[in-house]
């Protein structure tokens, strides 16, 4: 129902451990098995008292993680994807902005159990001319009356900021620009940001 990037608990030390003990060994293991992995590997980590451990792997971008990670990427995504397909990823200098992003999911009230669809959404145009604010559609449909809700998770409202706190403030402000009848959201996305202090 929301996500933020970067994780304040994923330190450089943890990153180094994961690169040496998890990421590259996973690539090597798949190659050794004759299953060369080309694409996006999503590594779900649990940072335990005994160090980082793998919770799960996914074989594609996370949703909504993609909604906070991609807006912070500096590279042209096509250059990076080409390098992946051609086996030349080592020639890419992958870079991310030195800032933060928070995404708050706007859902239909009642999700995930029972909810109504087909509610007219207003305010989407307010994102058009604003840098660092994004509204990604999850469950919407274009009709003659306009864009209406078409699922439990309706929109992902993402905002960037110089740090996580500013990004969170911006994202929650931007959620107010959007209206639909049964709009629902969590109010504690990024609570962990405060725990990190």
């Amino acid at each position, binding site marked *: *129902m929301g*996500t*933020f*990037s*970067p*994780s304040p*608990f994923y330190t450089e030390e943890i*990153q180094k451990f994961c*690169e040496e003990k*998890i*990421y590259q060994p996973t*690539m090597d*293991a*798949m190659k050794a098995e*004759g*299953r*060369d*992995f*080309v*694409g*996006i*590997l999503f*590594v779900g980590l*649990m940072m*335990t008292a005994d160090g980082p*451990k*793998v*919770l*799960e792997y996914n*074989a*594609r*971008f*996370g*949703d909504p993680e*993609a*909604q906070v990670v*991609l*807006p912070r990427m500096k590279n042209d*995504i*096509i250059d990076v994807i080409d*390098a*992946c397909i*051609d*086996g030349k*990823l*080592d020639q890419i200098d*992958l870079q*991310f902005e030195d800032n933060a992003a928070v995404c708050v*999911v706007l*859902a239909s009230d009642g999700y*995930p159990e029972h909810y109504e669809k087909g509610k007219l959404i207003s305010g989407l145009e307010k994102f058009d001319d604003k840098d660092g604010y994004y*509204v*990604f*559609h*999850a469950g*919407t449909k274009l009709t003659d009356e306009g864009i*209406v809700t078409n699922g439990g998770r309706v929109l992902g409202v993402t905002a960037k900021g110089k740090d996580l706190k500013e990004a969170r403030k911006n994202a929650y402000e931007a959620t107010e620009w959007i209206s639909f009848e049964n709009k629902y959201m*969590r109010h504690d*996305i990024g609570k*962990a940001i405060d725990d990190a202090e």
Partner: protein
Amino acid sequence: MKVLIVGSGGREHAIAWSVCQSKRVDKIYCAPGNGGIAQIAECVNITAMEFDKLADFAEENEIDLTIIGMDDPLVGGIVDVFEERGLRVFGPRKNAAIIEGSKSFSKDLMKKYNIPTCHYETFHSPEEALLYLGGCNFPIVLKADGLALGKGVLICQNLEEAEAGIATLMLDKQFGDAGDTVVIEDFMVGREASVLCFCDGTHIKPMTSAQDHKRAKDGDQA
């Protein structure tokens, strides 16, 4: 160049936005897409599991690159279908997407290659699973082996919940074949982080980290 994106969620909208920023891209298609994606891409009325129709579309419209956003078509082998037809596509082949498609495969891989993860056991019958659960410390984590719309992971606080979970996955088959095999894992305590990585088969480059709040309600309830 012309790019086709396969999928219809917020993830695919974010991918489409990112592709839209590229100076190298003239035209974006998305199948099936959604109301927001339609503002930056031409939506095509083909669903993600119609591999041959998607490949036909890519051929007929001279698509230079197809990006697969979703797990189901990847695990189902869409990349193999595109590659067999000489179409350029981004995503793991079926034999690599199994790292997501089978929890027991990924756990066995980690064990074999000493990649840090928690202790687990794999079961193919409810009787064996229930016998094992009788000697477990709780909470434990119960996972359907296959894809289950992101709902195949159950955290069980006690034996009753675990028995109910086994019934849901293995007997009632709420997630179909995905529950024919289950993985029972130790419950890990700590902070979660998600790290997405670009991979070329040999090299791997992690992106910036993220942390997800999966649950619907404040305080991670429901």
